């Protein structure tokens, strides 16, 4: 086996097939005749809906799975014939990097250095570099289990990079990571490509990340939809992308949701108070007629949606949810704007540590309120107090007018909560899960049947009613969790990072439901790491180190992100600007 010739592709994949058998004996074709090449040098991204085969492909390349048919060579080595030879030379970071929680940061690093046979001399030069890159230097003695999500992800990457691999495979390296850590991770990855020329293949559900790569491969249901430079995909939407100002008295979110079912619209999303629209050519204007469309340059995400829409059409499959709105269309947000969640000077201490420090905000009926912040900002702690799962150290907390510190039980009846982690019963079927939660909320008789039927219909769970909770495909778990949280018709819905790791389609679907709920008068409070999702909120608050740093409408927050370039600041720019400004030491300290 000769060394890879310069310029030869690092990964060559021809007519690759891989199937799995589900426990239900159902045959799942994870990869169906997949062919592509990853060129030496630069970044290549695998994108596509959940269950598209991204992880399977990366695992095949890492020699962890064996293909049913087809060829796969990595660094010129046939992976099937000699997986070990590949594993000796590449770096691989799985989606859930298996750090040893009971080993310290340093011990985890040392273990991987020993596995790769990194000499003591190399370590002396490599470790400081890795520590600087990941900013883990001050935490080398901390147990990996006690690190935040972003830090764990960085340590995983550091373990993968203890020696310079000839190829780096990263499976969703930024999933569940806040925008700051995400940016830091990307700087590390790009630095590797730039300074050491390491070729990288990564999968991601962030389309803006894919846009920054040299090459993308779009996978859907095991088939390659497109491959090439991202601009090729973007070109698909060129000339079809518009911005529209919502009609007076309507929020961008409402306009956007109304457009989603229009045959003339491929995609619509709220952005900076306006609606971004990708048009389907050759269709009558429909709902678009009443809007003034301003052409705008296309983005990768726009082209991606065009691709998926096309694939769905050729499947004769309805990609968009059938137009079954959650509530009757004529329900309008009640005009009273009554405050339903009132938080004033909320404090929570854990010993000497102040997790939540004098947080105040108000949420009105039917509003969507977003709580944003880096990992460890105190969002989840605030959430738990709002849901009555944790008592406040001090401060006022009123839910629907009831002081949570006194009338906890009655307030809890008004609350639905979807936790960050999967909190349904994996061993119960979808129907049994709903049945259980209905009885847990004290629903009986006709009303219980009615609510379960409602949930099944609204969240389109019918086809999977008999599947076990643990076997549900990605998007369905999240729908089931929401269905369960809404069974008792709560007035307020809390969603803690509900879209973490979900693909763009699932997220659209999710926000469509949230919009409908808010139209029905349900108050929704969310946390998210997707800054584009903040655009759906009526108001947002940015938290860090337990304090609220900024609060206001998305437009107001975005204004704080004014950058040096003339580019319009994105929500992510604004977020990072707000956090960095707060973390920067005060001027007099700098002078000292």
């Amino acid at each position, binding site marked *: 086996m000769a060394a890879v010739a310069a310029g030869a592709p690092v990964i060559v994949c021809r007519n690759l097939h891989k199937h799995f058998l589900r426990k239900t004996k159902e045959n799942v074709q994870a990869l169906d005749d997949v062919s592509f090449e990853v060129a030496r040098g630069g970044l290549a991204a695998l994108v596509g809906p959940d269950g598209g085969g991204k992880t399977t492909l990366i695992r095949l390349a890492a020699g962890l799975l064996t293909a049913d048919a087809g060829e796969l060579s990595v660094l010129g080595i046939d992976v099937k014939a000699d997986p070990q030879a590949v*594993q000796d030379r590449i770096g691989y970071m*799985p989606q859930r990097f298996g750090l040893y929680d009971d080993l310290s940061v340093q011990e985890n690093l040392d273990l991987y250095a020993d596995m790769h046979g990194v000499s003591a001399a190399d370590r002396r030069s490599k470790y400081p570099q890795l520590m600087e890159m990941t900013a883990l230097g001050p935490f080398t003695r901390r147990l990996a289990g006690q690190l935040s999500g972003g830090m764990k992800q960085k340590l995983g990457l550091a373990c993968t990079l203890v020696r310079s691999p000839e190829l780096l495979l990263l499976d969703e390296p930024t999933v569940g990571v806040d925008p700051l850590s995400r940016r830091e991770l990307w700087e590390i990855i790009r630095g590797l490509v730039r300074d050491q020329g390491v070729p990288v293949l990564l999968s991601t559900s962030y389309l803006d990340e894919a846009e920054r790569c040299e090459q993308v491969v779009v996978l859907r249901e095991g088939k390659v939809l497109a491959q090439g430079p991202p601009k090729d995909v973007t070109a698909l939407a060129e000339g079809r992308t518009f911005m529209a100002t919502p009609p007076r008295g309507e929020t961008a979110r409402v306009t956007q949701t109304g457009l989603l079912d229009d045959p003339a619209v491929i995609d619509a999303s709220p952005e900076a108070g306006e609606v971004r629209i990708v048009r389907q050519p050759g269709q009558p204007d429909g709902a678009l007629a009443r809007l003034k469309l301003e052409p705008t340059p296309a983005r990768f995400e726009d082209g991606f949606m065009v691709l998926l829409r096309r694939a769905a059409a050729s499947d004769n499959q309805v990609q968009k949810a059938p137009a079954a709105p959650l509530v009757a269309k004529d329900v309008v947000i009640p005009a009273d704007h009554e405050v339903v969640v009132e938080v004033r000077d909320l404090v929570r201490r854990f010993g000497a540590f102040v997790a939540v420090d004098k947080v105040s905000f108000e949420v009105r009926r039917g509003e969507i309120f977003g709580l944003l912040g880096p990992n460890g900002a105190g969002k989840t702690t605030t959430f738990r107090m709002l849901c009555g799962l944790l008592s406040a150290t001090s401060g006022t907390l009123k839910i629907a007018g009831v002081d949570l510190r006194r009338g906890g039980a009655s307030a809890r009846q008004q609350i639905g909560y979807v936790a960050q982690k999967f909190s349904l019963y994996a061993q119960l079927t979808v129907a049994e899960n709903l049945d259980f939660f209905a009885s847990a909320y004290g629903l009986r008789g006709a009303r219980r049947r009615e609510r379960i039927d409602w949930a099944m219909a609204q969240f389109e769970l019918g086809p999977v009613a008999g599947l076990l909770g643990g076997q549900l495909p990605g998007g369905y778990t999240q729908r089931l969790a929401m269905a369960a949280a809404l069974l008792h018709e709560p007035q307020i819905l809390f969603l803690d990072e509900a879209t973490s790791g979900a693909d763009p389609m699932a997220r659209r679907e999710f926000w469509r439901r949230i919009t409908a709920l808010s139209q029905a008068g349900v108050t929704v409070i969310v946390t998210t790491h997707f800054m584009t999702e903040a655009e759906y909120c009526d108001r947002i608050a940015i938290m860090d180190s337990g304090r609220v740093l900024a609060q206001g409408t998305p437009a107001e927050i975005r204004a704080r992100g004014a950058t040096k370039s003339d580019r319009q600041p994105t929500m992510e720019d604004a977020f990072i600007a707000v956090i960095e400004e707060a973390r920067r030491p005060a001027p007099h300290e700098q002078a000292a």
Partner: protein
Amino acid sequence: MTATAPSPRGSQGRFAPLAAKARRIWALIRKEGRQVVRDPSSFAIGVVLPVMLILLFGYGMSLDVKHVPIAVVLEVPSPDASEIAASFQLSPYFETHITPSMAEAQTLMLSGKVDGIVLLQSDFARRAAQGDASVQLVVNGIDGNTARIIEAYAGAAIAQSGVRVAAEGQGDGAAVGGQAVVENQLWFNSAYDSRYFLVPGLIVLIITLIGAFMTSMVVAREWERGTFEALFVTPVRTDEILISKIVPYFLLGMVGLLLCMASARFLFGVPFRGSFLTLTAVSMLYLLVSVATGLLISSTLKSQFLASQVTLVATFMPAMMLSGFIYDLRSVPLAIRLVSYLVPARYYVSLLQTMFLAGDVWSVILPNAAILAVVAAVMLALTRRVTRKSLG
């Protein structure tokens, strides 16, 4: 590293692959060791549980009957009757309450203060003179096993008084003649102390526990926590992972063995007649069998809960029930005896009992040790087969 693959570390010389291998194994062993020390559940299974078992089996559980409270009803005191009462009072097996009436004895029995009544009726002296004296024995039969033992001991105590009477020349030999005096002689366990066979059994249990139960968790844990996925995509080889899983638990098992040996010797004073070297050698064999079984189960099932349950049923229970530790395998039904041949613990129990109570009897040690060695080899080979660097 395959010979054909270009070595990225060629500059490290010809011995580099071996040195790198040794370094990987050492790093993994050290990691495993740290996890044992830091994980409270490993500590509980590896150290606390063995100590508890030693104390429980050594002090709490005993198959002997001692200090049985018994009532002796002396309706009319007479020299013969007193003789019998005295022999109960002298016996270490009984705690004797002398009462004048049966009614009082019955009250004691009903209130649970005594487990048996020896009734020497008012006409005992007269009938003893005639040579047809009878002693009535009432035993609380709730615990059948204890009841039989009490019965036997009481019988022996009464017979003994007869022997003593004869020896002291009160009445001629003919008076007690016709009665056969059974003289029991116990070999090997001369004190007839159940600890003598419980303690060797304890060693089997503890080694099974540390060897199989702990290792049954360690591979499954890596699967569950997803730590294997990243580890697999490194130069590490399957055999290196397995060695690193065997060594720490093997050492822990040896510590357990020492703990048992020390407590057997110094806490319970169980005699040991074999050589310590032979014992260590055969124990290592059995430990290897246990560790390999645990690993095999763990690698196959990949779930901690399932693996621990299966290990309990597949190794610990048979080691307790079917190894000849509690029930003598010669007296069990044929079918069960045949099954017991499949239980590796059985061979180890034979080895231990022989070495503790008889000595290094090579005709027993060699065949049993050979079987253990074969089982260990087979188990390790199977484990090597099922552990692959693959997620499929």
